[in-house]
């Protein structure tokens, strides 16, 4: 079953080509749509909602043609925009009830579903207060609630983690995961952060300059290789234990890098594990040198790294995101260290 299918979909504006013969099939589940700003993500969503006609090609959402069945699609699909869209002078409850009715829910059902949905996104007592006084995280939850209130079969979430702090971002990503696992709603979520989507999505579609760069499942991206992180102690004999291990491994023909973007660079050694034997080798090398092995852990390969290796165009994108990607890894490192 496909939820979204496009066939050489193009959108040209007088001066720019926003989408260029994009053909992609998206199945149920959580799908990430990745691309730099201006890659064509929002244009694609607009076309899929039936709000903007494609220049050529065709697209179907839930088996409905976007060119002719826009209204039917919008009744079954939820949309959370990237920008602010909330009036500050009404409460979350009033606003979401109104939006539910705009989706065709009868008044009583609209109220009931609003209470349910706001609870599911994590808004409790504050939902009776005017939205103007909410934090960014709470506003994002209201935006998500209005996209879910009519129990759609599919939701488009445009940059849902924008402007959130790390904790808020984690909560939002967890929520997005639950939209599929608990609510049974398929999700198309856009982001320009690959690392974020890696943790949330079943499938990732990468577009750049309106062209499809890659579409494959997240496990394909991340399981091809395993990165091993090693940290060793220093001894009198080897004042710089890390360097000693690296030199020996290098001699055995294993490339290492020092994870320079991580804090405490130089203490952690990253290498690619080809198989079981690599683990044994590391253990033996460390033991032979008489060092203590502080940690040896598998670190999941980040999608961004896959793209760095595999595609020049993606390199350009992920370069722009490098600081954020580093953030992500740092957080993980801190988590493991603790």
């Amino acid at each position: 079953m496909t939820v979204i299918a496009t066939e050489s979909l193009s959108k040209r504006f007088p001066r720019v080509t926003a989408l260029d013969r994009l053909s992609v099939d998206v199945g149920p589940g959580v799908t990430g749509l990745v691309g730099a700003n201006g890659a064509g993500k929002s244009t694609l969503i607009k076309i899929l909602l039936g709000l903007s006609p494609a220049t050529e090609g065709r697209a179907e959402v839930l088996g409905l043609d976007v060119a002719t069945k826009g209204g039917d699609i919008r009744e079954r699909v939820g949309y959370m925009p990237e920008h602010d869209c909330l009036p500050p002078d009404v409460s979350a409850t009033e606003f979401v009830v109104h939006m539910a009715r705009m989706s065709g829910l009868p008044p009583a059902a609209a109220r009931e579903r609003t209470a349910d949905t706001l609870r599911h996104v994590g808004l409790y007592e504050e939902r009776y207060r005017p939205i103007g006084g909410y934090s960014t995280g709470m506003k994002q939850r209201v935006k998500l609630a209005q996209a879910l209130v009519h129990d759609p079969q599919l939701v488009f979430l445009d940059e849902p983690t924008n402007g959130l702090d790390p904790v808020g971002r984690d909560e939002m990503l967890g929520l997005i995961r639950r939209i599929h696992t608990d609510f049974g709603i398929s999700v198309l979520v856009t982001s320009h952060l690959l690392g974020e989507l890696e943790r949330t999505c079943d499938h990732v579609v990468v577009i750049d300059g309106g062209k499809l760069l890659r579409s494959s499942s997240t496990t394909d991206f991340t399981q091809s290789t395993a990165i091993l992180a090693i940290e060793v102690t220093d001894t009198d004999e080897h004042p710089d234990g890390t360097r000693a291990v690296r030199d020996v491994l290098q001699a055995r023909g294993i490339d290492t890098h020092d994870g320079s973007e991580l804090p405490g660079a130089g203490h952690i050694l990253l290498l690619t594990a080809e198989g079981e034997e690599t683990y044994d080798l590391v253990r033996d090398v460390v033991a032979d040198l008489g060092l203590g092995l502080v940690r040896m852990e598998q670190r999941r390969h980040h999608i961004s790294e896959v793209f760095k290796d595999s595609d020049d165009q993606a390199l350009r994108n992920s370069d722009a995101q490098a600081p954020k990607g580093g953030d992500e890894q740092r957080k993980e490192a801190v988590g493991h260290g603790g």
Partner: protein
Amino acid sequence: MAVEQPSAQATAQIPARPGEQSRIHNIGYRNYDGPRLGRAYARRSLYSQSLRGAYGLGRSVKSKVLPMLLFVVMCVPALIMVAVAVATKAKDLPVDYTRYAVIMQAVIGLYVASQGPQAVSRDLRFKTVPLYFSRPIETVDYVRAKYAALASAMFVLTAAPLLVLYVGALLAKLDFADQTKGFAQGLVSVALLSLLFAGIGLVVSAVTPRRGFGIAAVIAVLTISYGAVSTVQAIAYDQNSTDTIPWLGLFSPITLIDGVQTAFLGATSAFPGGEGPSSGQGVVYLIVVLGLIAGCYGLLMRRYRKVGL
């Protein structure tokens, strides 16, 4: 039979009610399989929400103050007139039904200037419009709902004092047929006025997402046009060129309404010297009024065609 375990967090949210403690509630996500009433229902919902909003209902206390105050101000003179008519056992009401709105035009102008921007600028400013268009409704539904809502709100504002006058006139035992005819003519007149003023108010306020600018612009359009027309008419009257007075009235909304009701609804004109339009000129007035209403609708459609996501 496995029972779904509510999560610990969820249980904390729902205090167990006495007598229901033995029942295990599944308060996980529930799918909605009830009716979805579609586009026409969504349009009606937007209409009723906007109409209520035009009187501050469903909004903060602060936003109720002005529309309610204007509503009261609109009705008080009618109440006083009725009281006087009943007390003095007058043979007729001091003011014609058709004349009332012309006298109270400042209040009507203030109302449309405050509520027009409220109806459309808020959605533009807080970018709520894309949310509407991500739902079954389309541009035409949005424009019609908003236009109809503001026109209805203005009709309520302008027809309520007429109703007060009518009820008062009947209480004062004035001639029933006479009063009913006058009341009906007054209603037709204020219906036209509501459509015209709502259209102008919405077109002007949909230009800017800033509410303040919208208010100022609507007041400016209404007062400047009326000021200019009445001044030039007064000059024309002084110079005894009474033929031009009716034609000048075509250039401001309230004089347009005045002209139409003078020609067709048995009103006496408020123009200088009572020089209202003849029935021939009245047709021109009516065409201009209807043209303006249609033009406002067309401009709104054009304005919102571009406001996508």
